[in-house]
């Protein structure tokens, strides 16, 4: 019964957020600046939640999430530009973007099977830079450094509903996955891969699977990005972008989907809220980031968590 309670709360919250956004947008209560943030927030939530699966649940550090996003963005954008009616083009683009990114995920999955930890991290970073270079060089298809331009603006805040559903879908799929035998296998690998193997979990298979699913979702987010900004440039998918997504996941408390969502929202909106500080904006952002990380691991927060743990342990004794 408790399980269903959580699901009901989730549904109500999702509907309430949707209603609130629609009222704010259509009622003209939002500034244009805030309206232009709606889609980026959704997109970043998709990215953060999908990366959360790799970093939080699988426990592998990936610095190449932006590469998956870029593959999705470019392939999806080519579909959007093909002249199909939006009704058909948009879902198709999202699907193709996701699939292309997933294929890259499979490719990246190969070294994933051999490498761990920081070596894997640097490899994913390397993959990202390779993709970026290739996009830069493949001018006839990608427009090179000048970028792929004139992508129809099909995922602006006017198409909020579509993007929102996509976002909910991603959140739902990831949180569903976590509460399943596949999710348990992935988490088991994170906690102790030797023990995971010993209980019959195929570590390589599940690692690759996590990467592929996360890549698929990042690819979809890329299509949303393409349809929102209208121009794709390889430089926007460098490791800094990957790191920004990673920051959301870590700040959200690794392996915590709700945390990732909140962090994605905050970190997208925060720099805009700080515009009033003009030149000091990024400085304050940096300080805020450090402060949030320090708080997350401060004695105060730890005390709260430990109290909870003690209560559990106390009950056992």
């Amino acid at each position, binding site marked *: 019964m408790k399980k269903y309670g959580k699901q009901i709360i989730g549904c109500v919250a999702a509907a309430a957020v949707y209603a609130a956004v629609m009222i704010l947008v259509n009622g003209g209560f939002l500034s244009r600046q805030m309206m232009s943030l709606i889609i980026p927030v959704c997109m970043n939530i998709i990215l953060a939640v999908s990366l959360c699966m790799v970093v939080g649940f699988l426990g592998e550090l990936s610095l190449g999430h932006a590469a998956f996003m870029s593959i999705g963005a470019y392939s999806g954008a080519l579909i959007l530009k093909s002249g199909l009616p939006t009704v058909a083009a948009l879902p198709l683009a999202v699907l193709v973007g996701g699939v292309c990114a997933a294929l890259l995920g499979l490719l990246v999955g190969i070294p994933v099977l051999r490498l761990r930890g920081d070596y894997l991290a*640097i490899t994913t970073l*390397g993959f990202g*830079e*390779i993709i970026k270079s290739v996009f830069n060089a493949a001018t006839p298809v990608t427009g090179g450094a000048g970028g792929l331009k004139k992508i129809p603006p099909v995922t602006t805040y006017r198409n909020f509903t579509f993007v929102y559903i996509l976002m909910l879908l991603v959140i739902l799929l990831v949180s569903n996955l976590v509460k399943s035998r596949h999710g348990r296998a992935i988490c088991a690998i994170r906690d102790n891969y030797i023990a995971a193997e010993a209980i019959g979990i195929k570590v390589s298979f599940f690692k690759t699977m996590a990467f592929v699913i996360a890549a698929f979702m990042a690819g979809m987010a890329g299509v949303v990005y393409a349809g929102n900004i209208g121009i794709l440039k390889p430089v926007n998918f460098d490791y800094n972008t990957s790191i920004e997504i990673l920051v959301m996941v*870590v*700040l959200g408390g690794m392996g915590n989907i709700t945390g990732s969502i909140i962090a994605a929202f905050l970190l997208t909106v925060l720099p805009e809220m700080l515009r009033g500080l003009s*030149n000091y904006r990024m400085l304050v952002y940096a300080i805020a980031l450090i402060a949030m990380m320090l708080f997350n691991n401060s004695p105060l927060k730890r005390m709260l968590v430990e109290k909870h743990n003690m209560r559990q342990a106390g009950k056992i004794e």
Partner: protein
Amino acid sequence: MALLNGILAQLLNGLRIGSIYALIALGYTMVYGIAKMINFAHGDIIMVGAYALYVFVSLLHVHPALAVVLTIGFCAVMGITIEKIAYKPLRNAQRLAVLITAIGVSYLLQNLALLIFKATPIPFGSIIRVPSITVGEITISGLTMVTLAVTAVVMVGLTLFVNHTKMGHSMLAVSEDQGAAKLMGINVDRTITITFAIGSALAAVAGILYISQYESLLPTLGALPGIKAFVAAVLGGIGSIPGAMIGGLVLGIIESMSKAYISTQLADAIVFSMLVVVLLLKPSGILGKLSIEKV
């Protein structure tokens, strides 16, 4: 003959940039090996070192030799401060938490520099003047030789320090097992603080040589060499001191060779592909120790 000269010249170009990567990678590897964290702000400490040298020499008119010492001291103190404020409270947190904080520190340093020194590049002539050597048709730049020499000296010095001093032994112990080191009476906090001081001092040296080589100050100047040196450190086997040196030089040479003979457009892609290939063949880098988990 012309082809041979060309190859030789490109090799030297590789050494020129590679020796800088190697020097930065030494700092990376040092901090990584002992504190077990990827210090993403390392590249920005190089930037701070470069600006500090500029302030001492051009604005305060300190004698260059003294300025070098002051710069190294300044960066070491800054490294300690950053460690105390931003990293130490996270000593027992997840490793990723520290990584993100390091990224925050990187943003902070870059934006501070931007506010203080503005975005326009500041020209700053080299304080190191060493004549080039010409052998046949090949010219070896004086600075390249200085950088190589400094990198080699630093590498040897670090190796000796780590293996033959009390502090060095503490560092090795901390790098093996922090908990056990603590039980053995080693002051882990102090050891890590000193590691950061040394790492930052190395970054300062790298900054000084970098700015002498390229002569233009930018708030973001540390970012690219920082990431390349990180790659170099991993390539060589992160945590290994000679590995950092080899990784840096190899990276520099691959970079200049692929620019010269394959494609300047795809040079970065080639460099990173090489990295992936090396790691697939040798998952812990050229000289890295493969840590096998005991079951």
